[in-house]
């Protein structure tokens, strides 16, 4: 008998607790997106709940990652927030835990009447095509970041794609001009992910174009856990440094970031030893690496996402593939270490790549 009483008491206390939480937290929950351990509750940004059908609402679904991943999810989310500010709209995100939920997560936004849905990462490519196709005549626009669109083109889905090989090439070109030891290396995520391989091979091609005598070492992590092994990245970077490389490109999420952080610890970092980041200007996303960070091989993902959303607001999202810009981030703290003629040459190469007068000749075999 008394067992049932205990059970009832426990259940009641659980409910009571929940209810207390409810009443006392209403004041806290409104407007506070900074509470608790998580810095981004309730969507963050210029943003919040979609107030109604008249408002311009932007929804973002991450790849199996978080919006604070210091990488493409984060950049895309920042772009969405900027676009929300620029258009007076609202932005919100859902973080995918299980890749089988891509469609389900998009549906959260679709059924809430969101105008633009951004799906991040090439793994979501097929799910985006399916969802966009189903919403073709219903006024929802899709933006697929890193998702190359093959025929047949879905009119309401635009793939925001980048020529990673160009960004890698420009970074490699800079490294080829800057290296004093004649050796440069790259610590990369897995070569089974195309953008990573394009970055790596582009880097190699660029370095060799700048100086055919440069030795370029590319090392990829094993596919399992490829983007979340910073200690492996750090150890690999240190090994390459010890073998005489003086500029190292880290490209592979947290694995690459581990390489950057390690290089910043090396003697001579920022003077004779440099690191190059990837995707975004990592001066801001990996502050520990500021000392050695020469530049970052950027995909202007934030800008591309923002611009496409703004286009979508006016019903001008092109559909098919939209090539975002690539380039190199500012030199920041290493500005003084880069000679002016190097800067000039690199600038020309970046322009040439954009204009198509310089080809990287990188293909995925």
């Amino acid at each position, binding site marked *: 008998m008394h067992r049932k009483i205990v059970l009832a008491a*426990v259940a009641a206390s659980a409910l009571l*607790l*929940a209810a207390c939480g*409810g009443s006392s937290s209403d004041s806290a929950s409104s407007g506070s997106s900074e509470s608790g351990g998580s810095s981004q509750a309730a969507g963050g940004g210029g943003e919040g709940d979609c107030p109604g059908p008249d408002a311009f609402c932007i929804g973002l679904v991450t790849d*199996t990652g978080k919006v604070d991943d210091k990488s493409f999810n984060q950049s895309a989310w920042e772009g969405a927030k900027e676009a929300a500010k620029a258009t007076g709209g609202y932005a919100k995100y859902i973080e995918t835990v*299980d890749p089988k*939920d891509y469609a389900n997560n998009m549906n959260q936004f679709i059924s809430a009447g969101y105008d633009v849905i951004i799906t991040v990462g090439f793994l979501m490519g097929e799910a985006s095509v399916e969802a966009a196709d189903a919403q073709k005549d219903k006024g929802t626009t899709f933006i697929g970041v890193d998702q190359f669109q093959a025929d047949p083109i879905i009119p309401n889905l635009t793939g925001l794609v980048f020529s990673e090989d160009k960004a890698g090439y420009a970074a490699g070109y800079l490294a080829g001009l800057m290296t004093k030891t004649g050796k440069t290396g790259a610590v990369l995520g897995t070569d*089974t992910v195309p953008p990573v391989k394009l970055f790596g091979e582009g880097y190699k091609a660029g370095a060799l174009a700048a100086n055919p005598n440069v030795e370029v070492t590319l090392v990829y992590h094993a596919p*399992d856990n490829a983007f979340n092994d910073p200690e492996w990245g750090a150890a690999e970077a240190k090994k390459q440094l010890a073998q005489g490389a003086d500029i190292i490109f880290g490209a592979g999420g947290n694995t690459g970031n581990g390489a950057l952080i390690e290089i910043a610890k090396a003697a001579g970092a920022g003077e004779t030893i440099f690191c190059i980041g990837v995707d975004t200007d990592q001066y801001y996303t990996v502050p520990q690496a500021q000392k050695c960070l020469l530049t970052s091989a950027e995909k202007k993902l934030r800008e591309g996402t923002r611009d496409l959303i703004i286009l979508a607001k006016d019903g001008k999202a092109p559909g098919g593939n939209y090539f975002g810009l690539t380039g190199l981030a500012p030199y920041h703290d290493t500005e003084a270490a880069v000679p002016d003629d190097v800067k000039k040459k690199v600038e020309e190469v970046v322009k040439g790549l954009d204009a198509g007068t310089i080809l990287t000749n990188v293909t995925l075999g």
Partner: protein
Amino acid sequence: MSTMDPSRTDLGFSDPDPRRSGPLDRIPSIVLPIVSVLLAFAVGGILIWLQGVSPLRAYAVLFSNALGTPEGLLRVMEKSTPLILTGLAVTVGLRAGLFNIGAQGQLLVGAIGAAWAGYHFQLPLIVHLPFAVLFGMLCGAAWASIAGVLRAYRSVSEVITTIMLNAIAIALVDYLASEPLKEEGQPLTRTPAIADSAALPVFGIVPSGFLLALAVAVFFGWYLTRTTQGFRFNTIGLNPSAARYAGISVKGTIVLAMAVSGALAGLGGAIETLGVTGRFEPAFNAGLGFDGITIALLARANPLATIPAALLIGTMRTGAAALQFQTGIEPEVVDVILAITLLFVSAPIVARLLFRNRNIKQTTVTSGWGS
């Protein structure tokens, strides 16, 4: 082989003893998991409250979205299917005194096996679908049998071998999907899509794989309690020396139990491939096997009880996206709640609270590493 003291195995893994099958004694086995889940929700509620969200609202969102829409229900059923089966896989092991931590690896192997059988052959549906399902089960069974044979004939703990086999399976399927079984002409690490003749159909909003999982759970409810073989599993689980005395082949039964356990996990993987993802892609099957441990313990190794346990977890995992969408709570809160549930179910904290005047015997479901 360790001798397991039956008095210490009190999780209700065994067939109910006729002498204590009165209604009163059956209560604890239901009360404990329910109270544990409620308490875990209370603790989770505190975490949610700390994030500035009303726990009541959060839980309402978590469940209403998953259960309130047809798509949500479909996803709940899809998500619960491999959980029921990995839960059953762990359960069958536990009944036989084996702790199969390797459901994850067996599921992966089963999933890629079913994918291969599904795309490599062109057969009529009536042959192809059962063949692909069975082939996936066979792969899972074979993978688990490595641990079973080592346990039976070399006295190597199945716990350690299944941990090792998980790691090997993760690397192996990744290799297979990126090299020999990779779909040509595209960059992703994945196999080709399965043929239509190997796809598990969806009836309305009810996936046939879910029905299959339910049927399997019911079957094992009967099999483990009402058949000779089920009796053998229980006997070697409870008291291997008595089993040997009774003329049961302990070694053979251990191998069989591991194989059956692996086949169940492999079936979970096969249904994922043939009914949900349509091909094998390594990232699509992460973490399912580990939920199986939580489910089996929550269900107290009762095959039928794995169904509600799996549905609970499947519902929470389905609702997590809506939770984040509507309240901003991160989806990881589900993992925290599940871990606390597992803690309360397995540690005697709750049991002592509930049954203060009883001498609570602790559970030992596993034997040592190699003994």
